[in-house]
């Protein structure tokens, strides 16, 4: 199973806001097994989906050079369960963006109704404390972002189509595809 908790991006404006959707299906193991006979999509995986939406927004702001981790959930409120057949619309906005971290406000909506509000803090791993090992193989990350159709909707800060990061493209020809994600 891949650790992909969004299905595709629907909007992406660099350094500002990202939107993605997640369709909930009864065929997903976490839905089927989390609460037997009451199939819901676990809230923790909604947080993960919002974190992927927001984390990619933050990562792109640094041209995918920083190693970004979800460091803290400031708050998370859930207003209704997400059930099979629902489509969750995720929105992540950058509240604060600095050289050592970022604050993201994220929401999930279902059929226009608010489903979740989550505040997240992302931190960047520095070499002094965490070494230089990569979190993601850049080529694999690029493949994942293509699967999520990021480049179909992504805009730069001026609203022009976002070109694929050279940092990710340079690695593409030399790597094993999708070897280490998921």
């Amino acid at each position, binding site marked *: 199973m891949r650790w992909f908790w969004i299905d595709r991006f629907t909007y992406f404006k660099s350094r500002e806001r990202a939107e993605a959707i997640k369709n909930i299906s009864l065929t997903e193991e976490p839905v089927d097994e989390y609460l037997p006979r009451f199939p819901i999509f676990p809230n923790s995986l909604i947080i993960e989906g919002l974190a992927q939406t927001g984390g990619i927004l933050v990562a792109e702001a640094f041209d995918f050079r920083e190693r970004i981790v979800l460091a*803290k959930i400031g708050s998370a409120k859930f207003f209704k369960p997400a059930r099979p057949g629902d489509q969750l619309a995720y929105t992540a906005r950058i509240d604060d963006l600095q050289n050592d971290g970022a604050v993201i406000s994220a929401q999930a909506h279902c059929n226009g109704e608010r489903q979740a509000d989550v505040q997240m*803090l992302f931190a960047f791993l520095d070499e002094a404390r965490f070494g230089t090992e990569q979190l993601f193989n850049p080529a694999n990350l690029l493949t994942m972002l293509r699967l999520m159709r990021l480049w179909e909707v992504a805009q730069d800060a001026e609203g022009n189509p976002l070109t694929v990061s050279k940092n990710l493209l340079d690695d593409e020809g030399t790597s094993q595809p999708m070897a280490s994600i998921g």
Partner: protein
Amino acid sequence: MPTQDEVFEKVQAALVDALGVDDDEVTPEATMVGDLGAESIDFLDIVFKLEKAFDIQIPREELFPEDILTNSEYVKDGKVTDEGLAELKKRMSWADLSKFEENPRVQDFGDLLTVNDLCSYVNSKVGA
């Protein structure tokens, strides 16, 4: 320019929000780590909140002088030397280092900062 009470109230609000503690736990004497349970990642969160609340920039090394505490010129046998203490005082003139000076073990530095120190730091930035 905010008054000292206003500074305390905003610092208190930031700490309540970042650490999930109650208002009355955030006393001036409370230590950030020992009393309020702050972990390393919380400090980044607190810095972000203080910058926003007071519209200030906080150079990280002013609050977290790790460069001094990991410098072999200033640390011997796990303790900060006199020269190191002098550097710390210069960098952190707003902090009360008197207790730390009695036994300046590097490992104890993390639990040094109090809410009052944080308010003093903010005051030094906003000129309250």
